[in-house]
């Protein structure tokens, strides 16, 4: 094999590290996308031999569950001992460990076969943007987020506000009433 072909094969089969920003994303929608990357189903060379990639998820404490799921969704746990059953609300679990809601969403979106634990080991979730340097060095791709994040009014710079096209302007003596 020529040097070029060797390099091409190595780059094709190498395990890629992807980044996913979970800020204001639905964890269940994100789970469907992330588990595809963990399985290797995003590659045309997917196969039964391990083709999965690593995924680094940041800002998992800022995920957004739909509707009233924060109050209504419960997570069941049994310690194995008698009387050890417990039901925890999503908001309670998120307070205790802000990575668990997303981690469980991804775990439960996978099939319950022997590949699951290997794939979960390649998932790295962080509650905020503080990721260890050794892991950030490996990341080479960012996964597109399923939901668009709107820009708050105070996030626009003064230049953009001035440049934005104006149809009308309030007269100088107009009093804007504050709604209580």
């Amino acid at each position: 094999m020529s040097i070029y072909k060797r390099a091409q094969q190595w780059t094709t089969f190498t395990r890629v590290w992807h980044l996913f920003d979970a800020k204001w994303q639905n964890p269940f929608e994100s789970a469907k996308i992330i588990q595809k990357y963990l399985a290797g189903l995003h590659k045309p060379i997917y196969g039964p031999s391990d083709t999965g990639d690593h995924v680094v998820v940041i800002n998992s404490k800022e995920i957004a569950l739909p509707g009233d799921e924060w109050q209504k969704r419960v997570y069941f746990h049994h310690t194995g001992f008698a009387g050890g059953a417990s039901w925890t609300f999503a908001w309670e679990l998120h307070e205790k460990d802000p990575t668990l809601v997303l981690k469980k969403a991804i775990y439960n979106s996978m099939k319950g076969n022997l590949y699951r634990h290997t794939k979960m080991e390649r998932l790295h979730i962080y509650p905020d943007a503080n990721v260890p340097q050794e892991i950030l060095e490996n990341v080479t791709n960012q996964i597109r987020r399923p939901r668009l994040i709107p820009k708050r009014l105070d996030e626009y710079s003064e230049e953009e506000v001035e440049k934005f096209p104006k149809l009308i302007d309030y007269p100088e003596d107009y009093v804007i009433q504050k709604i209580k």
Partner: protein
Amino acid sequence: MVFRTFPLFVRNRGPDELWRKRRILKLSAHFHGRSRNCYSIAVRAVHRALVYATKARALKKEDMRALWDARLTAACEEHKFSYSLMRESLSRCNILLNRKVLTDLAIWEPRSFKSLVKLAWSRASQDGLNGVKELGEEPSGVITRGMIK
């Protein structure tokens, strides 16, 4: 009990026993334990193995088809297109490439596959198939000269 006639003592089934048994033991050479060496155990294991091999011929075709479908879905997603739309559009353009060939193209000839995706996208938007508009603007640069009908 006393055998009155001497021929009844004879338990020789014929001169071909060695070759009959060798035919079975040759197939069980890679089995575990006594199944590879002892005829009476090997013959049962060999018969099961042959039955599994027969049944698996249809299963292999199913497995390969599922693998090709997964690979082609991934390849279409790389170009931000949908696999189901791609299949429908290609058949409407009378491009009767099967899953095997499309997968080989997607892996070994990615630019050819990209041009097929572009062609399928143009045909899908021309015919107004369900779900094309949600994918966004169709790619430019598809020269059909009115031939995709």
